[in-house]
Protein backbone atom coordinates (compact mmCIF):
# COMPACT_ATOMS: atom_id res chain seq x y z
CA UNK A 1 0.00 0.00 0.00
CA UNK A 2 2.79 2.33 0.95
CA UNK A 3 4.57 1.55 -2.31
CA UNK A 4 1.54 2.26 -4.44
CA UNK A 5 0.70 5.41 -2.51
CA UNK A 6 4.34 6.56 -2.74
CA UNK A 7 4.34 6.00 -6.49
CA UNK A 8 1.20 8.03 -6.91
CA UNK A 9 2.41 10.78 -4.69
CA UNK A 10 5.82 11.01 -6.31
CA UNK A 11 4.25 11.05 -9.79
CA UNK A 12 1.96 13.86 -8.71
CA UNK A 13 4.88 15.75 -7.18
CA UNK A 14 6.96 15.31 -10.35
CA UNK A 15 4.18 16.61 -12.58
CA UNK A 16 3.48 19.53 -10.25
CA UNK A 17 7.14 20.52 -10.05
CA UNK A 18 7.53 20.24 -13.83
CA UNK A 19 4.54 22.53 -14.31
CA UNK A 20 5.88 24.89 -11.66
CA UNK A 21 9.36 25.01 -13.23
CA UNK A 22 7.91 25.65 -16.70
CA UNK A 23 5.47 28.25 -15.40
CA UNK A 24 7.94 30.23 -13.29
CA UNK A 25 8.73 33.04 -15.77
CA UNK A 26 5.01 33.58 -16.53
CA UNK A 27 4.22 34.16 -12.87
CA UNK A 28 7.31 36.00 -11.70
CA UNK A 29 8.52 39.47 -12.58
CA UNK A 30 11.58 39.88 -14.78
CA UNK A 31 13.76 40.45 -11.72
CA UNK A 32 12.58 37.29 -9.99
CA UNK A 33 12.92 35.32 -13.22
CA UNK A 34 16.53 36.44 -13.23
CA UNK A 35 16.82 35.18 -9.64
CA UNK A 36 15.15 31.91 -10.66
CA UNK A 37 17.95 31.38 -13.21
CA UNK A 38 20.45 31.86 -10.39
CA UNK A 39 18.53 29.29 -8.33
CA UNK A 40 18.72 26.79 -11.21
CA UNK A 41 22.47 27.27 -11.63
CA UNK A 42 23.17 27.01 -7.91
CA UNK A 43 20.86 24.01 -7.57
CA UNK A 44 23.00 22.09 -10.04
CA UNK A 45 26.17 23.38 -8.33
CA UNK A 46 24.97 22.27 -4.87
CA UNK A 47 23.64 18.89 -6.05
CA UNK A 48 26.88 18.13 -7.91
CA UNK A 49 28.80 19.02 -4.75
CA UNK A 50 26.58 16.78 -2.67
CA UNK A 51 27.11 13.78 -4.94
CA UNK A 52 30.70 14.04 -3.73
CA UNK A 53 29.89 14.74 -0.08
CA UNK A 54 26.55 13.08 0.67
CA UNK A 55 27.02 10.02 -1.52
CA UNK A 56 30.79 9.65 -1.77
CA UNK A 57 31.76 10.97 1.66
CA UNK A 58 34.36 13.26 0.03
CA UNK A 59 34.36 16.74 1.59
CA UNK A 60 35.75 18.86 -1.21
CA UNK A 61 36.79 22.29 -0.10
CA UNK A 62 37.59 23.28 -3.65
CA UNK A 63 34.37 22.65 -5.56
CA UNK A 64 34.16 26.39 -6.28
CA UNK A 65 37.20 25.86 -8.51
CA UNK A 66 35.05 24.11 -11.11
CA UNK A 67 32.12 26.50 -10.88
CA UNK A 68 34.62 29.32 -11.41
CA UNK A 69 36.52 27.57 -14.19
CA UNK A 70 33.21 26.89 -15.97
CA UNK A 71 32.32 30.56 -15.64
CA UNK A 72 35.67 31.72 -16.99
CA UNK A 73 35.57 29.16 -19.82
CA UNK A 74 32.14 30.46 -20.87
CA UNK A 75 33.25 34.08 -20.59
CA UNK A 76 36.45 33.56 -22.57
CA UNK A 77 34.56 31.60 -25.24
CA UNK A 78 31.94 34.28 -25.69
CA UNK A 79 34.21 37.29 -25.35
CA UNK A 80 37.71 36.48 -26.53
CA UNK A 81 37.57 33.37 -28.74
CA UNK A 82 36.61 35.38 -31.83
CA UNK A 83 33.75 33.07 -32.83
CA UNK A 84 30.39 34.31 -34.15
CA UNK A 85 28.12 34.98 -31.16
CA UNK A 86 25.65 32.21 -32.02
CA UNK A 87 28.34 29.57 -32.49
CA UNK A 88 30.18 30.57 -29.32
CA UNK A 89 26.96 30.43 -27.36
CA UNK A 90 25.96 27.04 -28.74
CA UNK A 91 29.35 25.68 -27.70
CA UNK A 92 29.13 27.22 -24.23
CA UNK A 93 27.64 24.29 -22.25
CA UNK A 94 30.04 21.81 -23.80
CA UNK A 95 33.05 24.10 -23.32
CA UNK A 96 32.23 24.87 -19.69
CA UNK A 97 31.83 21.17 -18.92
CA UNK A 98 34.91 19.99 -20.83
CA UNK A 99 37.22 22.64 -19.39
CA UNK A 100 35.94 22.08 -15.85
CA UNK A 101 36.27 18.31 -16.31
CA UNK A 102 39.86 18.72 -17.50
CA UNK A 103 40.74 20.78 -14.43
CA UNK A 104 38.88 18.30 -12.22
CA UNK A 105 40.84 15.43 -13.76
CA UNK A 106 44.18 17.03 -12.84
CA UNK A 107 43.14 18.29 -9.39
CA UNK A 108 41.23 15.09 -8.64
CA UNK A 109 44.13 12.89 -9.69
CA UNK A 110 46.22 14.33 -6.86
CA UNK A 111 43.44 14.95 -4.35
CA UNK A 112 41.88 11.47 -4.24
CA UNK A 113 45.23 10.10 -3.12
CA UNK A 114 44.27 11.50 0.29
CA UNK A 115 41.12 11.25 2.35
CA UNK A 116 39.32 13.16 5.08
CA UNK A 117 40.66 16.54 6.08
CA UNK A 118 43.76 16.14 3.88
CA UNK A 119 41.52 15.72 0.83
CA UNK A 120 39.67 18.90 1.84
CA UNK A 121 42.93 20.83 2.25
CA UNK A 122 44.34 19.63 -1.06
CA UNK A 123 41.26 20.62 -3.03
CA UNK A 124 41.38 23.94 -1.17
CA UNK A 125 45.05 24.50 -2.09
CA UNK A 126 44.29 23.89 -5.77
CA UNK A 127 41.34 26.26 -5.70
CA UNK A 128 43.50 29.00 -4.17
CA UNK A 129 46.13 28.30 -6.83
CA UNK A 130 43.49 28.88 -9.51
CA UNK A 131 42.35 32.01 -7.65
CA UNK A 132 45.82 33.55 -7.77
CA UNK A 133 46.15 32.58 -11.44
CA UNK A 134 42.79 34.23 -12.20
CA UNK A 135 44.06 37.35 -10.42
CA UNK A 136 47.43 37.45 -12.15
CA UNK A 137 46.68 36.21 -15.70
CA UNK A 138 45.18 39.58 -16.54
CA UNK A 139 45.31 39.05 -20.30
CA UNK A 140 43.15 35.95 -20.16
CA UNK A 141 40.88 36.57 -17.17
CA UNK A 142 40.78 40.35 -16.72
CA UNK A 143 42.60 39.98 -13.39
CA UNK A 144 41.10 41.79 -10.42
CA UNK A 145 38.29 43.33 -12.50
CA UNK A 146 37.09 39.97 -13.80
CA UNK A 147 35.21 39.79 -17.10
CA UNK A 148 32.10 41.87 -17.52
CA UNK A 149 29.56 42.74 -20.20
CA UNK A 150 28.96 39.15 -21.33
CA UNK A 151 25.70 38.83 -23.22
CA UNK A 152 23.84 35.91 -24.73
CA UNK A 153 22.82 36.55 -28.37
CA UNK A 154 19.35 37.61 -29.56
CA UNK A 155 16.27 36.82 -27.55
CA UNK A 156 18.30 34.88 -24.97
CA UNK A 157 19.44 38.21 -23.56
CA UNK A 158 15.96 38.45 -21.98
CA UNK A 159 15.57 36.59 -18.66
CA UNK A 160 12.35 34.94 -19.91
CA UNK A 161 14.10 33.10 -22.73
CA UNK A 162 17.37 32.59 -20.87
CA UNK A 163 15.40 30.91 -18.10
CA UNK A 164 14.19 28.21 -20.51
CA UNK A 165 17.68 27.88 -21.95
CA UNK A 166 19.03 27.32 -18.42
CA UNK A 167 16.22 24.94 -17.54
CA UNK A 168 16.81 22.94 -20.72
CA UNK A 169 20.41 22.43 -19.64
CA UNK A 170 20.04 22.04 -15.91
CA UNK A 171 17.01 19.75 -15.68
CA UNK A 172 18.67 17.05 -17.84
CA UNK A 173 21.94 17.55 -15.93
CA UNK A 174 20.15 16.93 -12.63
CA UNK A 175 18.42 13.91 -14.15
CA UNK A 176 21.76 12.49 -15.32
CA UNK A 177 23.25 12.98 -11.84
CA UNK A 178 20.19 11.26 -10.35
CA UNK A 179 20.63 8.33 -12.73
CA UNK A 180 24.29 8.25 -11.74
CA UNK A 181 23.66 7.94 -8.01
CA UNK A 182 20.88 5.37 -8.59
CA UNK A 183 23.12 3.20 -10.78
CA UNK A 184 25.52 0.46 -9.64
CA UNK A 185 28.21 3.15 -9.92
CA UNK A 186 26.26 5.24 -7.42
CA UNK A 187 25.75 2.36 -5.02
CA UNK A 188 29.46 1.60 -5.12
CA UNK A 189 30.02 5.26 -4.30
CA UNK A 190 27.74 5.04 -1.25
CA UNK A 191 29.54 1.90 -0.15
CA UNK A 192 32.80 3.83 -0.44
CA UNK A 193 31.52 6.44 1.97
CA UNK A 194 30.56 3.77 4.48
CA UNK A 195 33.71 1.66 4.26
CA UNK A 196 36.35 2.24 1.59
CA UNK A 197 38.53 -0.64 2.72
CA UNK A 198 35.82 -3.27 2.34
CA UNK A 199 34.93 -1.93 -1.10
CA UNK A 200 38.58 -2.22 -2.03
CA UNK A 201 38.64 -5.85 -0.86
CA UNK A 202 35.72 -6.63 -3.18
CA UNK A 203 37.97 -5.56 -6.02
CA UNK A 204 36.83 -2.03 -6.77
CA UNK A 205 39.54 0.45 -7.76
CA UNK A 206 38.67 2.97 -5.04
CA UNK A 207 40.71 5.89 -6.32
CA UNK A 208 39.60 5.47 -9.92
CA UNK A 209 36.00 5.43 -8.72
CA UNK A 210 36.51 8.55 -6.63
CA UNK A 211 38.37 10.28 -9.46
CA UNK A 212 35.57 9.49 -11.93
CA UNK A 213 33.03 10.95 -9.49
CA UNK A 214 35.22 14.01 -8.95
CA UNK A 215 35.50 14.65 -12.70
CA UNK A 216 31.77 14.13 -13.39
CA UNK A 217 30.67 16.40 -10.54
CA UNK A 218 33.34 18.94 -11.51
CA UNK A 219 31.98 19.01 -15.06
CA UNK A 220 28.43 19.68 -13.84
CA UNK A 221 29.66 22.41 -11.48
CA UNK A 222 31.38 23.91 -14.54
CA UNK A 223 28.11 23.84 -16.46
CA UNK A 224 26.40 25.60 -13.56
CA UNK A 225 29.15 28.24 -13.53
CA UNK A 226 28.88 28.78 -17.28
CA UNK A 227 25.09 29.17 -17.17
CA UNK A 228 25.35 31.58 -14.24
CA UNK A 229 28.13 33.64 -15.84
CA UNK A 230 26.07 34.38 -18.95
CA UNK A 231 23.01 35.15 -16.85
CA UNK A 232 24.66 37.84 -14.72
CA UNK A 233 27.04 38.84 -17.50
CA UNK A 234 30.08 38.78 -15.21
CA UNK A 235 32.79 36.50 -13.89
CA UNK A 236 34.96 37.61 -10.99
CA UNK A 237 38.04 36.07 -9.37
CA UNK A 238 36.05 36.16 -6.12
CA UNK A 239 34.21 33.10 -7.47
CA UNK A 240 37.42 31.19 -6.74
CA UNK A 241 38.33 32.86 -3.44
CA UNK A 242 38.40 31.04 -0.11
CA UNK A 243 34.98 32.12 1.13
CA UNK A 244 33.46 30.79 -2.13
CA UNK A 245 34.42 27.27 -1.00
CA UNK A 246 31.80 27.47 1.71
CA UNK A 247 28.88 28.30 -0.59
CA UNK A 248 28.09 24.79 -1.91
CA UNK A 249 28.64 23.35 1.58
CA UNK A 250 26.16 25.81 3.08
CA UNK A 251 23.58 25.02 0.39
CA UNK A 252 24.01 21.27 0.72
CA UNK A 253 23.83 21.26 4.53
CA UNK A 254 20.96 23.74 4.54
CA UNK A 255 18.92 21.51 2.25
CA UNK A 256 20.12 18.23 3.73
CA UNK A 257 22.99 16.07 2.55
CA UNK A 258 21.05 12.83 2.97
CA UNK A 259 18.73 13.45 0.02
CA UNK A 260 19.36 13.95 -3.69
CA UNK A 261 17.34 17.15 -4.16
CA UNK A 262 17.86 18.53 -0.64
CA UNK A 263 20.85 20.64 -1.76
CA UNK A 264 18.76 22.09 -4.63
CA UNK A 265 16.20 23.21 -2.06
CA UNK A 266 19.07 24.59 0.04
CA UNK A 267 20.34 26.52 -3.00
CA UNK A 268 16.90 28.04 -3.58
CA UNK A 269 16.54 29.11 0.06
CA UNK A 270 20.10 30.48 0.15
CA UNK A 271 19.72 32.51 -3.05
CA UNK A 272 16.32 33.94 -2.07
CA UNK A 273 17.59 34.77 1.45
CA UNK A 274 20.60 36.52 -0.05
CA UNK A 275 18.38 38.62 -2.34
CA UNK A 276 15.97 39.53 0.46
CA UNK A 277 18.59 40.28 3.10
CA UNK A 278 21.27 41.98 1.01
CA UNK A 279 18.55 44.23 -0.42
CA UNK A 280 17.88 45.55 3.08
CA UNK A 281 21.28 45.65 4.74
CA UNK A 282 24.92 45.59 3.73
CA UNK A 283 25.54 43.14 6.56
CA UNK A 284 24.39 40.08 4.61
CA UNK A 285 27.44 38.01 5.74
CA UNK A 286 26.51 38.64 9.38
CA UNK A 287 22.96 37.41 8.78
CA UNK A 288 24.26 34.42 6.84
CA UNK A 289 26.70 33.62 9.65
CA UNK A 290 23.85 33.58 12.17
CA UNK A 291 21.75 31.38 9.87
CA UNK A 292 24.65 28.94 9.46
CA UNK A 293 25.26 28.75 13.21
CA UNK A 294 21.57 28.07 13.89
CA UNK A 295 21.61 25.46 11.15
CA UNK A 296 24.69 23.68 12.46
CA UNK A 297 23.62 23.77 16.10
CA UNK A 298 19.86 23.26 15.80
CA UNK A 299 19.08 21.34 12.59
CA UNK A 300 22.22 19.61 11.29
CA UNK A 301 20.17 17.34 8.97
CA UNK A 302 18.89 20.36 7.05
CA UNK A 303 15.48 21.24 5.66
CA UNK A 304 15.02 17.80 4.10
CA UNK A 305 15.77 16.20 7.47
CA UNK A 306 13.25 18.47 9.15
CA UNK A 307 10.66 17.55 6.51
CA UNK A 308 11.29 13.83 6.95
CA UNK A 309 11.04 14.07 10.72
CA UNK A 310 7.75 15.97 10.48
CA UNK A 311 6.46 13.44 7.93
CA UNK A 312 7.41 10.58 10.27
CA UNK A 313 5.60 12.29 13.16
CA UNK A 314 2.49 12.74 11.04
CA UNK A 315 2.64 9.08 9.93
CA UNK A 316 2.72 8.00 13.57
Amino acid at each position, binding site marked *: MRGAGGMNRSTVISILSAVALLGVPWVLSEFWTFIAIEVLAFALYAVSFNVL*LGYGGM*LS*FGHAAFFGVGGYAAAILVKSAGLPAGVAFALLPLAAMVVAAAFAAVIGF*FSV*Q*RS*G*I*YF*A*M*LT*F*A*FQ*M*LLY*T*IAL*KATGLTGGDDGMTGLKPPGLLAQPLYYYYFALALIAPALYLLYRLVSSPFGYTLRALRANPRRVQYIGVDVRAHQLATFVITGAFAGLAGGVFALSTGNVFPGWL*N*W*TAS*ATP*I*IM*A*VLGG*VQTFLGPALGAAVYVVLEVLISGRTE*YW*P*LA*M*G*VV*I*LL*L*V*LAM*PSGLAGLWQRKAAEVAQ
Partner: protein
Amino acid sequence: MAELSGHGSPVVKALPAYSARVIDLVVQQLAWVQNPVVVARQLLAGVSNGMLLFLISAGLTLIFGVMRVLNFAHGTLFMVGAFVAASIVALAPQQGAAFAAALLGGAAALALLGAGIEAGILRRIYRAPHELQLLATFALVFILGDAVKLIWGREDHTVAAPAALSGATRALGLTFPTYRLFLIAVGVVVAIALWWMLHRTRWGIFVRAATMDRGMLSALGVNTRRLFTSVFALGAALAGLGGALAAPVVAVGPGLHAQVIIDAFVVVVIGGMGSVVGALVASLLVGIVNAFGILAMPGTAVVLTFALMAIVLIVRPRGLFGAPE
Protein backbone atom coordinates in the same frame (compact mmCIF):
# COMPACT_ATOMS: atom_id res chain seq x y z
CA MET B 1 52.99 26.01 -42.48
CA ALA B 2 55.99 26.63 -44.74
CA GLU B 3 56.39 30.06 -43.36
CA LEU B 4 56.49 28.81 -39.79
CA SER B 5 58.96 25.96 -40.30
CA GLY B 6 61.32 27.62 -42.83
CA HIS B 7 64.42 29.58 -41.90
CA GLY B 8 62.80 32.70 -43.20
CA SER B 9 60.33 32.61 -40.35
CA PRO B 10 60.32 35.82 -38.34
CA VAL B 11 59.75 33.73 -35.21
CA VAL B 12 62.99 31.78 -35.67
CA LYS B 13 64.99 34.88 -36.60
CA ALA B 14 63.80 36.67 -33.51
CA LEU B 15 64.71 33.80 -31.19
CA PRO B 16 68.34 34.68 -30.29
CA ALA B 17 67.40 38.29 -29.65
CA TYR B 18 64.42 37.16 -27.62
CA SER B 19 66.40 34.73 -25.46
CA ALA B 20 69.03 37.41 -24.86
CA ARG B 21 66.25 39.66 -23.63
CA VAL B 22 64.93 36.95 -21.34
CA ILE B 23 68.41 36.41 -19.89
CA ASP B 24 68.81 40.17 -19.44
CA LEU B 25 65.50 40.28 -17.63
CA VAL B 26 66.44 37.40 -15.32
CA VAL B 27 69.79 39.04 -14.55
CA GLN B 28 68.02 42.31 -13.83
CA GLN B 29 65.50 40.54 -11.63
CA LEU B 30 68.24 38.81 -9.66
CA ALA B 31 70.68 41.74 -9.44
CA TRP B 32 69.72 42.24 -5.80
CA VAL B 33 71.43 38.93 -4.90
CA GLN B 34 74.81 40.70 -5.01
CA ASN B 35 73.60 43.51 -2.79
CA PRO B 36 74.08 42.53 0.88
CA VAL B 37 71.94 45.41 2.09
CA VAL B 38 68.94 44.21 0.09
CA VAL B 39 69.48 40.58 1.08
CA ALA B 40 69.79 41.48 4.77
CA ARG B 41 66.73 43.73 4.61
CA GLN B 42 64.57 41.07 2.93
CA LEU B 43 65.81 38.40 5.32
CA LEU B 44 64.85 40.57 8.28
CA ALA B 45 61.44 41.30 6.78
CA GLY B 46 60.97 37.59 6.03
CA VAL B 47 61.95 36.42 9.51
CA SER B 48 59.87 39.08 11.29
CA ASN B 49 56.80 38.36 9.13
CA GLY B 50 57.47 34.68 9.77
CA MET B 51 57.30 35.35 13.52
CA LEU B 52 53.88 37.02 13.12
CA LEU B 53 52.79 34.06 11.05
CA PHE B 54 54.04 31.77 13.80
CA LEU B 55 51.88 33.48 16.43
CA ILE B 56 48.75 32.82 14.42
CA SER B 57 49.62 29.38 13.08
CA ALA B 58 50.81 28.06 16.47
CA GLY B 59 47.27 28.52 17.78
CA LEU B 60 45.72 27.12 14.61
CA THR B 61 47.86 24.00 14.71
CA LEU B 62 47.36 23.45 18.47
CA ILE B 63 43.58 23.70 18.06
CA PHE B 64 43.64 21.27 15.15
CA GLY B 65 45.93 18.90 17.04
CA VAL B 66 43.79 18.77 20.16
CA MET B 67 40.23 19.30 18.90
CA ARG B 68 40.61 18.17 15.25
CA VAL B 69 38.85 21.34 14.13
CA LEU B 70 40.24 23.48 11.31
CA ASN B 71 39.47 26.96 12.55
CA PHE B 72 38.84 29.15 9.50
CA ALA B 73 38.08 32.03 11.86
CA HIS B 74 41.63 32.14 13.19
CA GLY B 75 42.64 34.89 10.78
CA THR B 76 39.56 36.80 11.84
CA LEU B 77 40.63 36.51 15.50
CA PHE B 78 44.03 37.93 14.45
CA MET B 79 42.21 40.84 12.80
CA VAL B 80 40.09 41.50 15.89
CA GLY B 81 43.32 41.57 17.94
CA ALA B 82 44.74 44.21 15.59
CA PHE B 83 41.60 46.36 15.93
CA VAL B 84 41.56 46.08 19.73
CA ALA B 85 45.20 47.15 19.78
CA ALA B 86 44.45 50.06 17.43
CA SER B 87 41.75 51.30 19.80
CA ILE B 88 44.01 51.06 22.85
CA VAL B 89 46.96 52.75 21.13
CA ALA B 90 44.67 55.56 19.95
CA LEU B 91 44.19 56.54 23.63
CA ALA B 92 47.85 57.57 23.94
CA PRO B 93 49.67 57.38 20.59
CA GLN B 94 53.37 56.52 20.57
CA GLN B 95 53.47 55.99 24.34
CA GLY B 96 55.33 52.83 25.29
CA ALA B 97 52.87 52.06 28.10
CA ALA B 98 49.86 52.34 25.80
CA PHE B 99 51.51 50.01 23.31
CA ALA B 100 52.31 47.46 26.01
CA ALA B 101 48.70 47.71 27.16
CA ALA B 102 47.59 47.18 23.55
CA LEU B 103 49.61 43.98 23.26
CA LEU B 104 48.29 42.63 26.55
CA GLY B 105 44.78 43.89 25.85
CA GLY B 106 44.72 42.31 22.40
CA ALA B 107 45.80 38.95 23.80
CA ALA B 108 43.47 39.11 26.83
CA ALA B 109 40.41 40.22 24.85
CA LEU B 110 40.92 37.41 22.36
CA ALA B 111 41.48 34.84 25.12
CA LEU B 112 38.04 35.75 26.49
CA LEU B 113 36.44 35.75 23.06
CA GLY B 114 38.08 32.41 22.28
CA ALA B 115 36.89 30.83 25.51
CA GLY B 116 33.38 32.07 24.78
CA ILE B 117 33.42 30.68 21.23
CA GLU B 118 34.67 27.31 22.39
CA ALA B 119 32.23 26.95 25.26
CA GLY B 120 29.27 28.41 23.37
CA ILE B 121 29.64 26.88 19.91
CA LEU B 122 32.50 24.53 19.14
CA ARG B 123 31.97 22.34 22.20
CA ARG B 124 28.64 21.22 20.72
CA ILE B 125 30.04 20.01 17.42
CA TYR B 126 33.23 18.06 18.15
CA ARG B 127 31.39 14.86 17.23
CA ALA B 128 29.65 16.37 14.20
CA PRO B 129 30.81 15.65 10.63
CA HIS B 130 33.70 17.73 9.24
CA GLU B 131 31.44 19.80 7.01
CA LEU B 132 29.42 21.08 9.98
CA GLN B 133 32.60 22.05 11.85
CA LEU B 134 33.90 23.88 8.78
CA LEU B 135 30.59 25.70 8.42
CA ALA B 136 30.58 26.72 12.08
CA THR B 137 34.03 28.30 11.85
CA PHE B 138 33.00 29.92 8.56
CA ALA B 139 29.95 31.38 10.27
CA LEU B 140 32.36 32.97 12.76
CA VAL B 141 34.37 34.44 9.87
CA PHE B 142 31.22 36.12 8.54
CA ILE B 143 29.87 37.23 11.92
CA LEU B 144 33.15 38.56 13.35
CA GLY B 145 34.11 40.10 10.00
CA ASP B 146 30.91 42.14 9.94
CA ALA B 147 31.09 42.85 13.68
CA VAL B 148 34.49 44.46 13.05
CA LYS B 149 32.93 46.65 10.34
CA LEU B 150 30.08 47.61 12.67
CA ILE B 151 32.39 48.50 15.57
CA TRP B 152 35.43 49.99 13.84
CA GLY B 153 34.13 50.98 10.41
CA ARG B 154 35.30 50.00 6.95
CA GLU B 155 38.34 52.23 6.56
CA ASP B 156 41.93 51.24 7.28
CA HIS B 157 43.45 52.37 10.58
CA THR B 158 47.14 53.09 10.97
CA VAL B 159 48.81 52.33 14.25
CA ALA B 160 52.07 54.01 15.19
CA ALA B 161 54.74 51.99 16.95
CA PRO B 162 55.89 53.54 20.25
CA ALA B 163 58.71 56.06 19.91
CA ALA B 164 61.23 53.72 21.50
CA LEU B 165 60.64 51.08 18.82
CA SER B 166 60.09 53.19 15.74
CA GLY B 167 63.66 54.19 14.85
CA ALA B 168 66.42 52.23 13.16
CA THR B 169 69.11 50.13 14.79
CA ARG B 170 72.66 49.80 13.46
CA ALA B 171 74.24 46.39 13.60
CA LEU B 172 76.97 44.67 11.54
CA GLY B 173 77.41 47.86 9.55
CA LEU B 174 73.79 47.78 8.41
CA THR B 175 70.70 49.61 9.64
CA PHE B 176 67.56 47.70 10.55
CA PRO B 177 64.09 48.99 11.47
CA THR B 178 63.96 48.55 15.25
CA TYR B 179 60.34 47.38 15.20
CA ARG B 180 61.23 44.41 12.98
CA LEU B 181 63.90 43.35 15.48
CA PHE B 182 61.34 43.73 18.27
CA LEU B 183 58.92 41.43 16.39
CA ILE B 184 61.59 38.77 16.11
CA ALA B 185 62.43 39.08 19.81
CA VAL B 186 58.79 38.68 20.82
CA GLY B 187 58.44 35.69 18.50
CA VAL B 188 61.42 34.00 20.11
CA VAL B 189 60.10 34.68 23.61
CA VAL B 190 56.66 33.29 22.72
CA ALA B 191 58.19 30.21 21.09
CA ILE B 192 60.24 29.48 24.22
CA ALA B 193 57.26 30.12 26.51
CA LEU B 194 55.09 27.78 24.43
CA TRP B 195 57.74 25.09 24.48
CA TRP B 196 58.01 25.44 28.24
CA MET B 197 54.24 25.24 28.70
CA LEU B 198 53.91 22.19 26.48
CA HIS B 199 56.90 20.28 27.84
CA ARG B 200 57.35 21.39 31.43
CA THR B 201 53.84 21.78 32.82
CA ARG B 202 51.05 19.39 33.70
CA TRP B 203 48.76 21.26 31.31
CA GLY B 204 51.28 20.67 28.52
CA ILE B 205 51.35 16.94 29.19
CA PHE B 206 47.56 16.85 28.89
CA VAL B 207 47.64 18.85 25.66
CA ARG B 208 50.23 16.57 24.10
CA ALA B 209 48.33 13.51 25.28
CA ALA B 210 45.12 14.91 23.80
CA THR B 211 46.73 15.27 20.37
CA MET B 212 47.49 11.55 20.51
CA ASP B 213 44.33 10.09 22.05
CA ARG B 214 41.51 12.26 23.38
CA GLY B 215 39.37 9.33 24.45
CA MET B 216 42.12 7.78 26.55
CA LEU B 217 42.89 11.10 28.23
CA SER B 218 39.24 11.53 29.14
CA ALA B 219 39.04 7.94 30.38
CA LEU B 220 41.99 8.64 32.68
CA GLY B 221 39.90 11.26 34.44
CA VAL B 222 41.23 14.45 32.89
CA ASN B 223 38.65 17.18 32.48
CA THR B 224 38.91 17.50 28.70
CA ARG B 225 36.15 20.11 28.48
CA ARG B 226 38.18 22.58 30.48
CA LEU B 227 41.33 21.55 28.63
CA PHE B 228 39.72 22.23 25.24
CA THR B 229 38.47 25.62 26.38
CA SER B 230 41.94 26.55 27.61
CA VAL B 231 43.59 25.41 24.37
CA PHE B 232 41.17 27.42 22.24
CA ALA B 233 41.57 30.46 24.52
CA LEU B 234 45.36 30.19 24.27
CA GLY B 235 45.22 29.83 20.48
CA ALA B 236 42.93 32.85 20.22
CA ALA B 237 45.17 34.84 22.59
CA LEU B 238 48.21 34.09 20.42
CA ALA B 239 46.27 35.23 17.35
CA GLY B 240 45.21 38.38 19.22
CA LEU B 241 48.80 39.08 20.28
CA GLY B 242 49.89 38.52 16.68
CA GLY B 243 47.28 40.96 15.44
CA ALA B 244 48.28 43.57 18.02
CA LEU B 245 51.98 43.17 17.13
CA ALA B 246 51.21 43.37 13.42
CA ALA B 247 49.12 46.54 13.80
CA PRO B 248 52.05 48.98 13.25
CA VAL B 249 53.31 47.17 10.11
CA VAL B 250 50.00 46.46 8.30
CA ALA B 251 46.92 48.40 7.30
CA VAL B 252 44.41 47.54 10.04
CA GLY B 253 41.24 47.11 7.97
CA PRO B 254 38.39 44.67 7.48
CA GLY B 255 40.28 42.85 4.70
CA LEU B 256 43.21 41.95 6.96
CA HIS B 257 42.06 38.43 7.82
CA ALA B 258 41.93 37.00 4.30
CA GLN B 259 45.63 36.92 3.48
CA VAL B 260 46.57 35.99 7.05
CA ILE B 261 44.37 32.90 7.25
CA ILE B 262 45.51 31.59 3.88
CA ASP B 263 49.18 31.99 4.84
CA ALA B 264 48.53 30.37 8.21
CA PHE B 265 46.88 27.38 6.50
CA VAL B 266 49.86 27.01 4.20
CA VAL B 267 52.16 27.12 7.24
CA VAL B 268 50.16 24.56 9.21
CA VAL B 269 50.03 22.16 6.26
CA ILE B 270 53.76 22.49 5.52
CA GLY B 271 54.78 22.23 9.18
CA GLY B 272 52.45 19.34 9.87
CA MET B 273 48.94 19.73 11.29
CA GLY B 274 49.17 19.68 15.07
CA SER B 275 52.90 20.36 15.37
CA VAL B 276 54.02 23.61 17.06
CA VAL B 277 57.66 23.07 16.08
CA GLY B 278 56.50 22.50 12.51
CA ALA B 279 54.52 25.73 12.66
CA LEU B 280 57.65 27.63 13.75
CA VAL B 281 59.89 26.19 11.03
CA ALA B 282 57.25 26.53 8.31
CA SER B 283 56.38 30.10 9.39
CA LEU B 284 59.98 31.19 8.98
CA LEU B 285 60.21 29.29 5.70
CA VAL B 286 57.06 30.86 4.25
CA GLY B 287 58.01 34.31 5.59
CA ILE B 288 61.44 34.15 3.97
CA VAL B 289 60.19 32.60 0.70
CA ASN B 290 57.59 35.37 0.42
CA ALA B 291 60.12 38.12 1.18
CA PHE B 292 62.53 36.96 -1.54
CA GLY B 293 59.77 35.78 -3.88
CA ILE B 294 58.51 39.35 -4.08
CA LEU B 295 61.91 40.39 -5.47
CA ALA B 296 62.52 37.41 -7.73
CA MET B 297 59.07 37.14 -9.29
CA PRO B 298 57.00 40.20 -8.41
CA GLY B 299 53.27 39.58 -8.36
CA THR B 300 53.47 35.83 -8.80
CA ALA B 301 55.25 34.81 -5.60
CA VAL B 302 51.93 33.95 -3.97
CA VAL B 303 51.43 31.17 -6.52
CA LEU B 304 54.59 29.60 -5.08
CA THR B 305 53.13 29.19 -1.60
CA PHE B 306 50.01 27.37 -2.83
CA ALA B 307 52.10 25.20 -5.10
CA LEU B 308 54.34 24.44 -2.10
CA MET B 309 51.28 23.54 -0.01
CA ALA B 310 49.89 21.26 -2.72
CA ILE B 311 53.25 19.53 -3.19
CA VAL B 312 53.65 18.91 0.54
CA LEU B 313 50.13 17.44 0.73
CA ILE B 314 50.81 15.15 -2.23
CA VAL B 315 54.31 14.02 -1.32
CA ARG B 316 54.23 14.14 2.48
CA PRO B 317 50.69 14.90 3.70
CA ARG B 318 51.72 14.91 7.34
CA GLY B 319 54.04 17.84 6.64
CA LEU B 320 57.55 18.33 7.97
CA PHE B 321 56.85 17.52 11.62
CA GLY B 322 53.33 16.11 11.73
CA ALA B 323 52.27 12.76 13.14
CA PRO B 324 51.64 10.06 10.49
CA GLU B 325 48.25 10.24 8.79
